[in-house]
């Protein structure tokens, strides 16, 4: 197995696994493999081609940012990766399972076991306590109440919220809410932590705090995928994928991405 630090992204293993024959399951190293996934929307008679054939391969333990201007298809890609949606064409393999052809209830199961969501707007249940919010994925996993409670407590302690368990979301700060959401995302030991603009509703200090949590998780071996339009936030990841017009524009190591930003400016990504 290659070192992930210094081999260029666009070649070798990634190329191989995405160009493999359709229907061939990727090896265990790969947590996410998409092969030519497409997604179109009918917006009142006008067909919007949100994704026009995206090939992505992500290894276990990677920390990846997906960037792109609005309309680039990054939200669509994130919905597909998060199994909230299925592609119109192409294959999506998640932890060795072909999820692109799954039915609703199977997708729900995959979301429950394999994916931990962190949203821009936190999406906590407003009337439930922090503890109860974190327990929720375990409820749908059918975990018995005692174990549920213990695991939720452990997850909250992991994000330094052991003393806020009985607080409701409106009694918590933005950063605390997002940490509750992270605890909720991690409680069922998912294959990937999938964050959609996780700092979009936070001030810069709190954003850094959340980024430190992500950094710790990533160094602890958690696969993290983060969708963002902020280069500053994206540059926390070790690998940055940039989308434009429903296609991958670039897929680089952090260092190379930083270099590119420095030469052509953030506007080249933002526009």
């Amino acid at each position, binding site marked *: 197995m290659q070192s992930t630090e210094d081999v260029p992204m666009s070649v070798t293993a990634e190329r191989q696994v995405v160009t493999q024959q359709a229907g061939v399951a990727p090896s265990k190293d790969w947590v996410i493999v998409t092969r030519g996934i497409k997604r179109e929307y009918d917006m009142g008679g006008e067909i919007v081609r949100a994704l026009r054939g995206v090939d992505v391969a992500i290894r276990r333990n990677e920390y990846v940012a997906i960037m792109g201007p609005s309309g680039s298809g990054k939200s669509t890609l994130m*919905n597909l990766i998060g199994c909230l949606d299925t592609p119109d064409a192409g294959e999506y393999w998640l932890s060795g399972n072909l999820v692109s052809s799954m039915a609703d209830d199977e997708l729900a*199961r995959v979301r429950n076991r394999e994916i931990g969501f962190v949203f821009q707007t936190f999406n906590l249940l407003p009337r439930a306590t922090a503890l109860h919010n974190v327990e929720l994925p375990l*409820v749908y996993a059918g975990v018995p109440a005692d174990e549920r409670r213990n695991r939720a407590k452990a997850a909250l302690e992991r994000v330094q919220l052991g003393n806020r368990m009985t607080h409701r979301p409106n009694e918590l700060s933005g950063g605390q809410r997002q940490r509750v959401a992270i605890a909720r995302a991690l409680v069922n030991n998912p294959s990937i932590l999938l964050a959609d603009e996780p700092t979009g509703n936070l001030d810069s200090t709190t954003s850094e705090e959340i980024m430190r949590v992500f950094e710790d998780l990533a160094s602890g071996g958690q696969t993290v995928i983060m969708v963002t339009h902020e280069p500053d936030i994206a540059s926390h990841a070790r690998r940055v994928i940039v989308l434009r017009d429903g296609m991958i524009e670039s897929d680089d190591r952090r260092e190379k991405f930083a270099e590119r930003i420095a030469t052509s400016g953030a506007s080249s990504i933002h526009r």
Partner: protein
Amino acid sequence: MAFFEAVRLALAQIRVQKLKSFFTLLGVTIGVMFLIAVVSIVEGMSSYMEHDFVGKLIGVNTVTLRHIPEIGGDISEAEWRAMQRRPRIKITDVKPVVDALPPGTLWSAEGYDNVSISSQWSKPTMLQASAVEGDYFSIREMKPEKGRVLTQQEMDLGTNVVVIGQEIATKFFPKLDPVGRQLKVAGLPYTVVGVAEAQGSIFGISLDRFVIAPYRSPLRHVVNRPLVIDAIKIKATGDADMVEIQETIRQVMRGRRGLRPSQPDNFAIETSESALSFWANIKSKLVIAGVVLPAIGLIVGAIVIMNIMLVAVAERTREIGIRKALGARRRDIMSQFLVEAATLSTVGAAVGILVGITLAQIIAAVSPLPATVAPWSIIAGVFVGAGVGIVSGIYPASRASRLDPIAALRQE
């Protein structure tokens, strides 16, 4: 797990929005309340009819021969007038009827009417007085509380003696022992020989307002025209003889009246069963009312709950999106809202049960109608409540379960 979760959620919802919940549950509450109250009253009346009424008024295993039935079903005006023209039962009918029956069968003959009764201590009052013969006291199972009942000798001789009911005793002989004192019955002087035990009441009408004298005493001329009597009562020794006895009486009477086979009976034979079948007829109508009234409330309740649940689904679209993103399947969302609707309406039903029981007790207390709360009606109330919730929750719940998680999460 998810079930208790949903129940807890629904109960929390009720606590938070008390007024809204009150209106939501009103329909179901009223429906179940009516169900419990009506069923309680019907059941109460039923056990009353079967145990007290029939026993007291007609007597178990007793056949009564009259010219017009005392407890009738649906009788038209024309039928009623035809009955009025029937020949009366005569004292001379008694012997042939009794002779045709097995020896040892108890019998009595009676004539009665409202007559003026007075005593030294009270003004004249119109009350029922009976002139009786035969085994009257045995058939009625009437025992003396003071003194004694009429003797065979007094019956045979037509002595001016009476047995009176409790109310007559207190009214005409206040704070006195009536035995041996004089009572004027239709102006005729009678001596009280006994006071009967309390007979109770039916539907608030006291059964202790009576005066019983021997048939052969002068009272018979006051209560009826010569030879006419109002009823012949026969008591069978066991259940098995009842049909046979009725048939024997019918044949004897038809023979005496010279009826051809094509002609209908021009007399009435009543049994406790015929009274009960009359009651069953009324009961079935009450039960229909007991179903229709609650049904209206429950339908209204179901519509209201369906609306409230649709509003809840719309308000909580984002919550549904969150739950779906976290791995809730369609059936998880579906059951969450179904359980919530069922919990809501079961709470409504529980309140309805309590109010219904209270209502039944109040009705029983302030009116002569008896009420017994039937355990099955409580269970039925709970099930009906849950059922209404589930039925009215199906559509909103299925709408919730089919929401697209992406669109649901995007909702503000």
